[in-house]
């Protein structure tokens, strides 16, 4: 492993025990993340992208979960580590920005105190220093009148402001890796743009690595250098963002790209909808999980599971028996 690699994920599988049986939410996922790099993880609901981000952090519930494989963050193994050992990583090495800013802040604790906690408990700052630093962080994430907002309760802040506070909490311990799980899903477009720019800016400024988990290809298109596309818990395609957009080989990637409407297309452009619905994780088909919805599926797809294999470009992998031909030019 090169010393540039910050995060090394190998064959990670996360399965939940449910009353209806064993549910494999993440299935054999592997990738590397270099320092200062930003990686996008894209998939629809049920693709396992959120469970994957929690598994990387080791933040899954305590019981009823089985994780196998290896997640090494700066050389430290997360899978199987004790809660105490993981606690050492959390906040200091890796921090998370959550999906819904309305529910991710404690409603009865002042926002300043929620930032303070990392500084005082984890960094051992005293009360005054923690307060000063918390206000600095609030200013850094673009909260106006940070001094007075320090004592505000979350309910008096708008969604955008709350997400800035969540980012401030994540930055408090100066982590090397920031995991952002759908950080802008519930926000308005103009606020979404603000938050994405903020994440971009702090990542560059603090030299962090970032994993941006989202269902929206628009979010990752210009803000990540590499992409992982997930379907039914597995990686179906990965490569540089450019390669995945322009030279994708997996039919699901194309379907995902072409089924979402674009502002640049004329109105009443017929959308290439994917038939059927996202897969049932408790009852996955034997072969390729996408086969039932795939226009190119053959008998082999329905019986045998494709593994990731390299495409022409370096670092570009796809899992498909009938890959699409490389198209010339960009997909749009």
């Amino acid at each position: 492993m090169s010393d540039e690699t910050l995060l090394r994920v190998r064959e990670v599988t996360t399965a939940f025990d449910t009353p209806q049986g064993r549910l494999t939410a993440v299935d054999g996922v592997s990738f590397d993340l270099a320092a200062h790099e930003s990686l996008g993880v894209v998939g629809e609901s049920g693709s396992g992208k959120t469970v994957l981000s929690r598994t990387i952090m080791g933040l899954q519930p305590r019981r009823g979960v089985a994780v196998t494989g290896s997640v090494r963050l700066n050389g430290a193994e997360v899978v199987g580590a004790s809660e105490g050992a993981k606690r050492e990583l959390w906040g200091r090495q890796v921090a998370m920005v959550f999906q819904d800013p309305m529910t991710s802040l404690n409603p009865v604790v002042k926002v300043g105190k929620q930032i303070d906690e990392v500084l005082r408990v984890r960094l051992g700052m005293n009360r005054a220093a923690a307060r000063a630093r918390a206000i600095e962080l609030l200013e850094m994430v673009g909260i106006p009148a940070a001094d007075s907002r320090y004592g505000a309760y979350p309910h008096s802040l708008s969604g955008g402001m709350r997400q800035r506070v969540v980012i401030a909490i994540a930055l408090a311990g100066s982590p090397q890796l920031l995991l952002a799980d759908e950080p802008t899903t519930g926000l308005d477009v103009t606020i979404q743009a603000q938050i994405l720019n903020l994440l971009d800016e702090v990542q560059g400024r603090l030299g962090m690595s970032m994993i941006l988990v989202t269902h929206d290809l628009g979010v990752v298109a210009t803000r990540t250098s590499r992409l992982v596309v997930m379907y039914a818990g597995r990686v179906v395609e990965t490569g540089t963002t450019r390669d995945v957009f322009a030279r994708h080989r997996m039919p699901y990637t194309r379907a995902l790209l072409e089924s979402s409407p674009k502002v640049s297309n004329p109105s009443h452009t017929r959308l290439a909808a994917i038939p059927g619905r996202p897969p049932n994780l408790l009852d996955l088909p034997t072969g390729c999980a996408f086969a039932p919805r795939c226009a190119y599926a053959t008998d082999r797809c329905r019986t045998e599971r494709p593994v990731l294999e390299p495409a022409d470009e370096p670092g570009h992998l796809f899992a498909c028996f009938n890959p699409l031909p490389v198209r010339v030019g960009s997909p749009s």
Partner: protein
Amino acid sequence: MARYLARRLITLVGIVIIISIGAFYLIHLLPGDPATVILGTGDSPQNRARLYAQLGLNRPVIEQYFVWMKNILHGNLGTSFISQVPVWTTIRAALPIDLEMIVLSQILSFAVAVPLAMSSAKRPDSWLDRFLGAFSFTMLSIPAFILVVVLVLVVAIKWAVPHTGVSSYVPLSQDWVTNLESMALPSIVLAIGSVTVYYRVLRSDLIATLQQEYITLARSKGISQRRILWRHALRPSSVALLGTAGVNIGGLLAGGFIVQYLLDIPGLGYTLVNSIGLSDYLVVQGIVLVVSIGVIVINFVFDFLITLVDPRIARE
């Protein structure tokens, strides 16, 4: 916040007035002549004359109410026609006993229920949680009077603990050891009832809270589980607990009679039961009024505590 409290205070006063009307009017709702009901067994021509003078029974009902109210505001709830003791004197002697019983039982209840609920919520469906769940459910289904009968049988008789009667009751200020000895059993009985309720309410809210995203965020900061439970989970989970406690404590004040009656503790409930037996209407009326107001004040205090715990509530 201040506006919210002011509004609550106004409603409080309004309700007290309505309750006073209710307590006053009770006598007119009952069948028969009010004078006969009030005098009960203490009927005599002199008493009758005094009653008419005291309440102005021949005057219009509205005027009677104002006379009655004026007396009450001067601390005069009337004088019992049966014992010839002022009602307020009787109540003042009994009330501290209820308060002591409630304070003791509530300290005990919270001290037991909160840690139990936390250990249950930490690992729902663990053997401890299942056991506590089943146990609390069973206790919930045993009425207080059955519990008292059983406890008296086991503790007071089998273990020969001194069973104090009304005559031997000693106030806290006189001899706290003897007092606590006699208050232990009733407080424990009341506490058992409260613990089961508090445990169940807090446990289910804690479990819901621990599934909230902000708890995951707190975990992701790398702080200890103990800190998460006490600093992040307990406060947002205690809104329903405080609401329940307010109602429950009010219920103890109003419903403590059964325990007092069975254990011979001369509190308000005991006095109430006795007065009902003697048909001492004025004492009953006085206790109804005092207890009602007490219940409302307790609810108000707990509503206030809730707004302290959850700042979102005062905003609505």
